[in-house]
């Protein structure tokens, strides 16, 4: 995904930062020690892979899709683990009032939309098609993600 001369360094930094913060969120949300350790142990090599990708493979003018693929696949895995954890130990509170449900949904929907968008973008770019709708898809994915996270924060405060 090469986007011309425009620098995309902010994406490179933001994606790594997003991965670190999301991993920390999952680390504190998981109750099983093995999964906690797994998420924490994976943090450093994935971040190193992200830096290597930014320095050698997808440099500043390229969208860091390789790192996005890895990090979003992990978000997908973590959110599914979070769903399993919720199923295994349900609480009395209404599901829609549980912040963990909204967080898990955010981290399920967002990676699916992002991974689909990246795939579609690559396809559109290869076939020289108009990419406007794909950009829209990126925006929609982000809006949905932040709305769901907002809901999670709101229910968490209640």
């Amino acid at each position: 995904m090469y986007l011309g001369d425009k620098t995309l360094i902010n994406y490179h930094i933001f994606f790594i930062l997003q991965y670190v913060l999301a991993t920390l969120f999952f680390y504190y949300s998981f109750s099983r020690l093995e999964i906690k350790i797994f998420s924490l142990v994976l943090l450093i090599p994935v971040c190193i892979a992200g830096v290597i990708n930014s320095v050698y493979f997808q440099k500043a003018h390229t969208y860091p899709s390789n790192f996005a693929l890895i990090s979003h696949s992990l978000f997908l895995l973590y959110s599914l683990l979070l769903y399993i954890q919720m199923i295994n130990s349900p609480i009395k509170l209404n599901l829609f009032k549980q912040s963990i449900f909204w967080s898990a949904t955010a981290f399920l929907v967002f990676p699916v939309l992002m991974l689909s968008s990246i795939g579609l973008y690559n396809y559109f770019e290869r076939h020289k098609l108009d990419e406007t709708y794909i950009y829209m898809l990126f925006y929609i994915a982000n809006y949905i993600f932040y709305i769901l996270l907002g809901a999670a924060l709101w229910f968490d405060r209640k």
Partner: protein
Amino acid sequence: MRRSPEQAEIYLLFFLGIFVFSCLVGFIIYFIFVYRNKQLKNDREKDQMVAQYHQELLKTRIEIQEQTLKHISDEIHDNIGQVLSFIKLNLSQAKNLDSGQKQEKIDESRELISHVIVDLRNLSHSLSFEHIVKHGLPETIKNDVQTLQNTGAYDIDFIISGQHYSLDQRIELVLYRIFQEAINNIIKHSKAKHLKISLQYFPEMFNLTVEDDGLGFNAGEILKNCEGNGLKNIRNRASLIGASMDVNSSPNEGCQITISLNPSGNSQVNDNEAIPSGSG
């Protein structure tokens, strides 16, 4: 009108996108459905647990009542009744005696009546259910230890350590019943001479330990084969209040039963019903 291969691919992608999105929504709906079912199942299990808890509590109270009534009946029959009969005999003999001997019989009868009064007072104290609600677990166990020691059959060390704190009344009642069950086992089976009963009040843990130097048994085997009603009862009751039971025993080496309970996280069932006070 024929579609170009690229157009067909775009349609394919479009339908693939719809499929992925439908799967996503379907998964979330399925999750909500499964979670709701789990919640309902959990609620049912909790209700069952509450019902079982109340049933066991009721059973415990009835057992304590029965034991107390039996104790009262035995005491009246074997002790108070006998002494009163003796007093009656004394007084009926007195009418045919001279004044000196009469006075002697009256003094003897007065002495015996004093004994009966003391025995009746002790009997009143032993109305355990009332006693445990009013005076708490340590005092009630102390009372029982005293009664047991008065029989002369056992040499008992009773130790309370740590800073005493009150447990929930229902938990104290179940703990007392566990103590009674352990003592009953000792009296029936152990042929012990020396007992050690301790209550340990640690901030994070409460321990009730009953130890004897009797015949002992193979603890692992008995617990594994679910033999021994007494031990089974103790284990069930301990789990009812969220406590754990530890049995250390081997043949000819006595037995030690320890009930450990976290005072802050005690009962599995948490409701606010208090034990109605009333005599045993």
